[in-house]
């Protein structure tokens, strides 16, 4: 299925959970925040939130800033 990941089309086997997607991307879930179709997902809900075809996902972290 295709999703929109950080603004780009991304092909992945699905459906899967947010937690599964982060694992697939090799991203440490403790270091990021995730938005699913414009809603911020709490870390405790990563493994129960399903990503479906066409969904928009933003994965953000902290970088240097003023």
């Amino acid at each position, binding site marked *: 299925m295709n999703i929109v990941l950080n603004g780009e089309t991304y092909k992945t086997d699905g459906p899967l959970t947010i937690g599964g997607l982060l694992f697939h991307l090799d991203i440490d879930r403790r270091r990021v925040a995730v938005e699913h179709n414009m809603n911020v997902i709490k870390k405790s809900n990563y493994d129960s939130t399903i990503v479906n075809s066409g969904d928009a996902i933003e994965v953000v972290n902290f970088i240097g*800033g003023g």
Partner: protein
Amino acid sequence: MPENLLTIADKSFNSRLIVGSGKYLTNDLMVQALEASGAEMVTVAVRRVNLADRSTGSLLDYIDTSRYFLLPNTAGCYSANDAVRAARLGREAGLSNWVKLEVIGDEKTLFPDNEALVEATRILVKEGFVVLPYTNDDPITCRKLEDEGAAAVMPLGAPIGSGLGIQNPNNIQIIKAASNVPVIVDAGVGTASDAAIAMELGLDGVLMNTGIAGADNPVEMAEAMKLSVKAGRLAYLAGRIPRKMYATASSPIDGIVGS
């Protein structure tokens, strides 16, 4: 001394200097500069994870969060909606409800969009955020921000990254006199004396990034800023002498040889 603590909402800080973590050539240099600054609160930006290049690691691999309190910003947001979104993401990434709120109105000056800033403050305060808005040096906007529940107001001294110092000390003093929340100068500090002037005006703190990170030697400048913020605060508390047009002799006028 308790009066020398910077207290914002329910937190107190020994240092009145808040520093940014951007623009450093390396993360190691940033870590050294943070250390030298003595700051306890550090601003960070919320950005998309670079999925193509994961080699740089996370900023959180470098900043010791048991030592520094992270203040996520909403830099780069041009609408209240985008700023609110960034603040919510920052809260989830950092697990604190504090945000340095920026809603930018113009790319060239990076001046805030007052109207959107007040609106975003209203929304985020209702959601339980501790909001520290970066604002114009406009007393009316600062009053509106405080009325909406901002935990501090952070007027700019000069445009972000300009290094021009405190351009409108009179407005800054009016803001301080009218505010019931801490007033922190955010942006414009170019060198140590600028920070000292901000503190001598009676402000509660100074936030800077480029002034340190952009210096030839950021670690030494960080220490200079630490000392100048302290010096300025002390001078403010000590109470300066009034300005006078003419001289007043420092030495006694009696007993001068030859008189």
